[in-house]
């Protein structure tokens, strides 16, 4: 049968099955049907670990910015605990990754924690998009390019919750709601003067929360060479998450944070261009810029390779933990951790943007020496993590293994929504679909797969980045999610829950070098506090502590001797160090404090 006939037959089959398809209610009609509730808006943030950087006015980033303002204070959608409202009405949301900010003139709410008392809901389901509004933006000052309306208004009912703002550059389509992929506006996606088209790879962003019953005005201040669009979405989401913040533990004012010495230093990615170092024993902390580290590389990942920290994108560097000497590893769009010690993978797309053009990968050591020849990845793959000799790649056909000599494996795990969450020398942890309702661990040698499932105490939901890590010996997998903290046996999938860790927050985990202790910390980028914990796998003791400082993402555990270069005892409060805002931060050197 020729192609024409096959296509016709396939079309007939599909049309036939579609004829049985019920037509759901149109999304625009659902708006009127939903019950009043302004509950789990922050669920989305907990789910996807979006970057919410709420800072006081005055921390505005430099350069072009998009400003979104609320013009009408809320009168009816007041949280149950008014004391959780910010002390003043002037707050600014700063998205450092996309270079825009949102000003909150009145009645806006500040972050996950203040919202929490209003956000505890009984188990229910996500409904549908409540209201979707797309706002066209100014397309520069180019005389050949049309101006589109600068502002738009979103009328929100008391039942609406605005939770996201999406920015993207247009591809020159004649109406502003269809636009193309593949570059961040803050990567200066150019606007073609002839066609008035541009491209952008901006990704979906969460982190703006506006309770309903007000009018939101959206406008932009992009530069004159960027075609752009802001899309805001209001969702009505009900879910079973409990969003109460972790209660601060009764911490001693002095002495070791966890009650006794941990003999570690925790090194957090600060999401911008440096790290936050915490010595829980001495209560000395510091913020320090890492040469070569730049904001914008996601997922947030702090990668230790031997004695180096690997940082950066576009140009990737290895920063010596002890000497702070920085080595350029190569020009690549991103790096991906390798299974081999002392190496990473460099991945470069021909368009120099993730997913744009042909991807080439090669492995380098920490001197920048290429270990493998650059080889094409093939397909539209997105490498996730290294496996022995190759990469685990997310493709349309699920997670496939890629090796330089043989290319992509034929067989994929999961489907196009599958996501890799962890890798060790011989195991790969992945979710067959991004919702992570199920997590699987596959033994790469035997191909045997075990499931970490609800029955064993794991409730899934790993949104928020790489929040699963194998223990140093590979025998256990620590999984932190909005659903809690569990530790799974790598071979059997049998998991046990760590009681006492808050079931509500995006979290990162890191093992001590000996694999006995598991450290866990809440995602606190853009907030002013972090809950951290130390779980002893031998005794089952979990000690939590509350830090009066935020700006923490993925982290690693160092020995104090290794971390000396990251710590400086300045005997000043944490607030004395400049807040992390903007991109780059403008910081230099190191700023120490005691907490």
């Amino acid at each position, binding site marked *: 049968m020729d192609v024409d006939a096959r296509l016709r037959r396939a079309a007939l089959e*599909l049309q036939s099955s579609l004829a049985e398809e019920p037509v759901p209610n149109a999304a625009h009609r659902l708006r009127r049907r939903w019950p009043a509730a302004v509950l789990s808006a922050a669920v989305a943030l907990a789910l996807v670990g979006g970057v919410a950087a709420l800072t006081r006015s005055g921390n505005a980033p430099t350069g072009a910015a998009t400003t979104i303002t609320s013009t009408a204070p809320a009168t009816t959608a007041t949280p149950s605990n008014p004391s959780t409202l910010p002390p003043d009405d002037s707050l600014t949301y700063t998205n450092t990754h996309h270079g825009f900010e949102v000003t909150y003139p009145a009645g806006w709410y500040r972050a996950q924690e203040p919202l929490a008392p209003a956000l505890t809901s009984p188990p229910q389901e996500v409904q549908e998009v409540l209201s979707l509004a797309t706002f066209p933006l100014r397309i520069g000052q180019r005389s050949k390019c049309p101006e589109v309306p600068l502002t738009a208004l979103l009328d929100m009912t008391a039942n609406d919750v605005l939770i996201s703002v999406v920015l993207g550059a247009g591809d020159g389509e004649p109406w502003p709601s*269809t636009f193309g992929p593949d570059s961040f506006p803050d990567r200066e996606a150019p606007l073609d003067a002839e066609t008035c088209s541009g491209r952008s790879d901006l990704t979906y962003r969460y982190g703006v929360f506006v309770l309903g019953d007000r009018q939101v005005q959206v406008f932009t201040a992009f530069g004159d060479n960027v075609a752009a669009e802001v899309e805001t979405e209001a969702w009505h989401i009900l879910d079973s998450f409990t969003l109460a913040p972790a209660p601060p533990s009764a911490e001693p004012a002095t002495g070791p944070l966890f009650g006794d010495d941990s003999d570690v230093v925790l090194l957090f990615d600060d999401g911008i261009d440096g790290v936050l170092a915490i010595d829980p024993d001495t209560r000395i902390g510091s913020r320090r810029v890492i040469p070569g580290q730049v904001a914008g590389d996601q997922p947030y990942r702090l990668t230790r390779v031997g004695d180096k920290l690997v940082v950066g994108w576009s140009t990737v560097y290895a920063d010596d933990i002890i000497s702070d000497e920085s080595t350029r590893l190569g020009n690549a769009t991103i790096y991906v951790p390798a299974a081999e010690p002392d190496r990473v993978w460099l991945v470069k797309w021909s368009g120099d943007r993730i997913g744009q053009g042909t991807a080439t990968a090669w492995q380098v050591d920490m001197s920048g020496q290429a270990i493998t020849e650059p080889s094409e990845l093939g397909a539209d793959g997105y490498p996730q993590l290294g496996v022995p000799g190759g990469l685990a790649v997310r493709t349309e056909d699920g997670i496939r293994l890629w090796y330089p000599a043989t290319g992509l494996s034929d067989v994929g795990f999961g*489907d196009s929504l599958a996501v890799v969450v962890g890798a060790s020398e011989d195991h790969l942890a992945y979710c067959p679909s991004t919702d992570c309702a199920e997590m699987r661990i596959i033994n790469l040698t035997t191909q045997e797969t075990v499931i970490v499932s609800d029955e064993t105490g794991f409730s899934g939901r790993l949104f928020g980045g790489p929040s699963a890590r194998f223990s140093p010996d590979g025998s256990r997998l620590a999984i932190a999610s909005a659903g809690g903290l569990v530790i799974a046996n790598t071979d059997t999938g049998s998991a046990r829950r760590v009681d006492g860790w808050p079931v509500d927050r995006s979290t990162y985990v890191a093992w001590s070098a000996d694999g006995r202790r598991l450290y866990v910390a809440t995602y606190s980028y853009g907030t002013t506090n972090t809950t951290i914990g130390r779980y002893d796998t031998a005794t089952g003791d979990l000690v939590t502590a509350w830090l009066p400082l935020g700006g923490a993402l993925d982290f690693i555990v160092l020995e104090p001797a290794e971390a000396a270069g990251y710590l400086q005892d300045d005997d000043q409060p944490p607030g004395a160090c400049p807040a992390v805002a903007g991109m780059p931060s403008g910081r230099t050197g190191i700023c120490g404090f005691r907490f």
Partner: protein
Amino acid sequence: MENLPLVRGVEDFDSFYRREYRAVLGLALVLSRNRPIAEELTQEAFLATFRRWDRVGRMENPGAWVRRVVANRSVSTFRRATAETKALLRLATGAQRRAVLDPAESVDIWREVRRLPHRQAQVVALTYLDGATRREVAEILGCSEETVKTHLQRARQTLSNRLNVEGEHGR
């Protein structure tokens, strides 16, 4: 598309939606493969249409407009990622999964169509699934009939090679 004549009276959007939903969903399914994503893309496309209904509704062919939206969004990495996130939020919190109507599982040829360059895939989907004429495809995609013809020929040739079947010419 902006130049389409505004000659019609405004049809009721709901009846337009009910009439066109399945066809638009089919287009999204073929071009995006995944059922939840296709549903999101379809709803998005109709929402976009709804918001402009006072204008689109008076176009000669509002169906072309919504098809263009969904065809473009289905092949857009960014749009698909957005739709994926939405779909997952819906699924992740327990919404009932319906039986997945996944053409890729039953008909390999759609999988090959999706591997084509985006424009070619759109032309094939509109031509075969939607039964659109060359002129209609050109109207929907905002290009010339000659371009549609070229894309279709190249797509058939590529599909023919990949599927290891007899080549054929023209339609």
